[in-house]
């Protein structure tokens, strides 16, 4: 019992994921600053931001809106992200829970943060938040099918195995990315992750310059701190998920620590560079991009897998 609780809450569970996510958030901001020839924030900046919002600031509830739903939405988003994170990290660190089919559960749990952003934004009763929520909804509709196709392609590549441990074990003598279909899937999943994280080419749901943080406009104080925490968690677990799907796992023992850290840092570096060198697209352009081009690439990858490439 005590060992399981340690797995879930300390390592490799909640505490580890949250702290690593905070450090990755600093890394993202520092790389952004370097790309713009600035110096960037200090190392502990994400933790200062989180603690300030959690401990110091006042939480304001909307006068015309559902207060209970407004406050529950961030709690649910942290819960969903945390559950997905634990289900990803436990097989990644080689702990066998005997749970087959966890990849499907993870796929659904990764949608919960976006869904709760929509619920919270609509509960706040702010018109700009409603615009943000409707954009987020359209974005989910466009990228979820692509993400599902990519995950299905990886499952097919692993010989129809739906267990994360099997997928990791199959890649020990050659990661999936070392084939044509693997490279195509990598491109698709990186761009889907960009949309899932709400980073710049697809950040129309929280566009600062047009709808002033959109879905999160009414959040303040500890409720906003929980949303920040969700963002930190997602910034860590999605790269780890990609590592497991295509790059041969995320092992944290011996020399493998170095490779795992380099893999995650490389993926986040790629995401940050895409975020800093692209303008925000319109929602219709994003939908066309995912529905036509990304789905096409994912289907080509599936066909290639059927022919054994």
């Amino acid at each position: 019992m005590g060992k399981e609780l340690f797995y879930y809450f300390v390592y490799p569970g909640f505490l580890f994921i949250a702290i690593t996510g905070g450090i990755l958030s600093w890394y993202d901001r520092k790389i952004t600053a370097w790309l713009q020839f600035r110096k960037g924030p200090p190392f502990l900046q994400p933790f200062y931001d989180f603690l300030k919002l959690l401990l110091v600031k006042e939480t304001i509830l909307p006068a015309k809106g559902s207060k209970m739903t407004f406050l529950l939405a961030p709690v649910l988003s942290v819960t969903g992200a945390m559950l997905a994170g634990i289900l990803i990290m436990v097989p990644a660190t080689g702990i066998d829970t005997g749970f087959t089919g966890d990849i499907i559960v993870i796929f659904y749990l990764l949608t919960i943060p976006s869904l709760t952003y929509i619920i919270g934004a609509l509960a706040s009763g702010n018109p700009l938040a409603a615009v943000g929520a409707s954009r987020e909804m359209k974005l989910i509709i466009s990228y979820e099918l692509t993400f599902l196709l990519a995950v299905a392609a990886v499952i097919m590549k692993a010989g129809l195995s739906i267990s994360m441990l099997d997928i990791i074990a199959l890649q020990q003598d050659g990661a999936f990315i070392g084939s044509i279909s693997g490279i195509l899937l990598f491109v698709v999943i990186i761009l889907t992750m960009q949309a899932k994280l709400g980073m710049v080419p697809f950040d129309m749901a929280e566009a600062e310059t047009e709808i002033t943080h959109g879905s999160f406009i009414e959040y303040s104080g500890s409720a906003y701190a929980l949303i920040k925490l969700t963002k930190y968690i997602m910034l860590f677990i999605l790269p780890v998920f990609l590592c497991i799907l295509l790059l041969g796992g995320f092992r944290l023992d011996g020399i493998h620590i170095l490779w795992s850290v380099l893999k995650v840092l490389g993926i986040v570096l790629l995401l940050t560079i895409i975020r800093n060198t692209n303008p925000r697209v319109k929602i219709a352009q994003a939908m066309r991009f995912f529905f036509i081009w990304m789905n096409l690439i994912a289907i080509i990858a599936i066909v290639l897998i059927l022919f054994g490439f």
Partner: protein
Amino acid sequence: MGFKEFCFKKSLWLFHFGGASCNNCDIEILACLTPRFDVERFGMQLVGSIRHADVLLVNGSINQKDKVRLLELYRQAPKPILVVAIGACGCTGGIFAESNVFAGPVDKIIPVDAYVPGCPPKPEAIIAGIVKLLNKKPAKQKTA
């Protein structure tokens, strides 16, 4: 200095309110955020919503229409919030002080924590003002 106050001072998020400004102070505030001066070194960030703000930067002369909006913004901001009046117009009224639509300098409308005079103040002056604000003994803030 307590732990809470330390975290607060390490991560100040700025919200920018421009009154009936000539745009010069606005541009100098933006210059603070650009690579040459880069206030993100101190953890400061420009945010788009007053709900996330810790510092309310007010510049430009405040006329009758701006007064209503400034009061509304101050009322909606989560406490504690610091107010900085930037430029001659924000501090005293400047050349607009005797205009018939002028509604008084910022400190007649909401409590102000720091003044940065100048027409417009240089980015160095704005950063110096913020450093003085950070070193100031915190006054007890009333939750309005």
